[in-house]
């Protein structure tokens, strides 16, 4: 579904990968190795070169905004542009099911952004990204600041979406989480991306 060939930026060495519908690849590697840069390059947020296609369509033939609706990206520190939670969602009622699933009450809509904890921000930003209904979702440590119950809720929510055909690239520092959620593993070290096959038995999604 998502094909990446020789994707490179001035910090990232040429990277290639392919991601099928309903597949999740975990991305691991030391801090500062370029994991975030890889996701940003795929989302086309930084200048980059290389060939990226989605279902055979070349990214360069798709306008930037449309591309990012197809290939969503959730950064480790999501940004907010308005004062309250609700203003960041087009239709709050449509988001309600997901909002409740991740443990928020309906009144969350009126909460000021400044009052949210890091974990709450991450979960709400995940809902916001899912509402766009992307085909591919790029997650940058989406459970880094969450308690065990919230981690389980987020993992099960994304697993449901993967089951429905969403393709996911999931950056995590947690080896156990990588094994739980992903079918394959990519390692990023010093700007170099390579697939780790040794410790992962080949499981087709």
């Amino acid at each position, binding site marked *: 579904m998502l094909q990446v060939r020789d994707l490179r930026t001035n910090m990232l060495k040429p990277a290639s990968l392919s991601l099928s519908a309903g597949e999740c690849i975990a991305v691991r590697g030391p801090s500062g190795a370029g994991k975030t840069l890889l996701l940003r390059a795929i989302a086309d947020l930084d200048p980059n070169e290389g060939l990226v296609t989605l279902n055979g369509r070349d990214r360069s033939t798709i306008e930037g905004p449309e591309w990012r609706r197809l290939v969503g990206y959730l*950064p480790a520190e999501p940004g*907010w542009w308005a004062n309250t939670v609700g203003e960041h969602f087009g239709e709050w009622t449509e988001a309600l099911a997901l909002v409740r699933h991740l443990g928020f009450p309906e009144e969350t809509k009126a909460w000021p952004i400044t009052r949210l904890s890091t974990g709450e921000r991450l979960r709400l930003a995940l809902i916001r990204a899912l509402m766009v209904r992307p085909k591919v979702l790029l997650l940058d440590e989406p459970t880094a600041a969450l308690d065990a119950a919230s981690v389980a809720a987020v993992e099960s929510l994304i697993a449901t979406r993967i089951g429905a055909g969403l393709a996911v690239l999931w950056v995590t520092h947690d080896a156990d989480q990588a094994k739980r959620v992903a079918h394959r593993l990519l390692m990023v070290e010093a700007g170099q991306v390579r697939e780790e096959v040794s410790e992962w038995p080949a499981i087709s999604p």
Partner: protein
Amino acid sequence: MASYIALNYWELAAASVFVFMNAGLSVIFSLRVHRSLLVAAIRMVVQLALVGLVLTTLFSVVSPVWTGLAALGMVLFAGREATQRQERRLSGWWSYGLGTGCMMMASVLVTVFALLTAVRPNPWYDPRYAIPLLGMILGNCMTGIALGLDTLTTSLVSRRASVEAQLMLGATRRDAAAPVMREALRSALMPTINSMAVTGVVSLPGMMTGQILGGVPPAEAVKYQILVMFLIAGGTGLGAVTAVLGGVYRLTDGRHRLRLDRLTAPKAS
């Protein structure tokens, strides 16, 4: 006409006592500004003396070429000044080119408009009218553009996450940058709006005061001042809008990305 009181050099020298008094205070309280104060005072005297000479020559020849060259020199100098006032600048020629280009377009357009429709000297480019009008409009335009571009770049840097969050959800660069753009335009226009609001109550504008000291009846001086305020507001608005739009255009790209890599590194503070 010449119902003004001419000053001689001894009277000016006497008034400079206050500058020396300030320098003395700086020494007493170790403010360490006496040096820059004196340098600034000397610069001011030399620059104004030169301007006096230049204007005397310009007014006597009334040549479209020399008037145009003087105007060009003023615009280029204002462009440099506006560029230097910015904390984070656009890289390369954009930094100087964008501010100066917008300033030239806006101030020349507004000045020529005023010369052709309101003041109507003969010939229309008579430097006695063109140069002071351009100077007043340019000075305010420069402040507006410098403030607008400075707010634009610093806010885009500080609010990068919020702008990119919108881009990530499929917003266009125009929509994503709109809040920052509005903020930049507001700060560009605020000084003009504030000065219009308090003119005549809190402050008597320099030009009007000058005309009154020069013997013009207050009612006539007021009319000129109103004209100049309109021109300043128009020129500043036009210049700031084009400069900020140009800045947004340069700091984003056709793939709707935020391109902060097109800014120079922050000044070491």
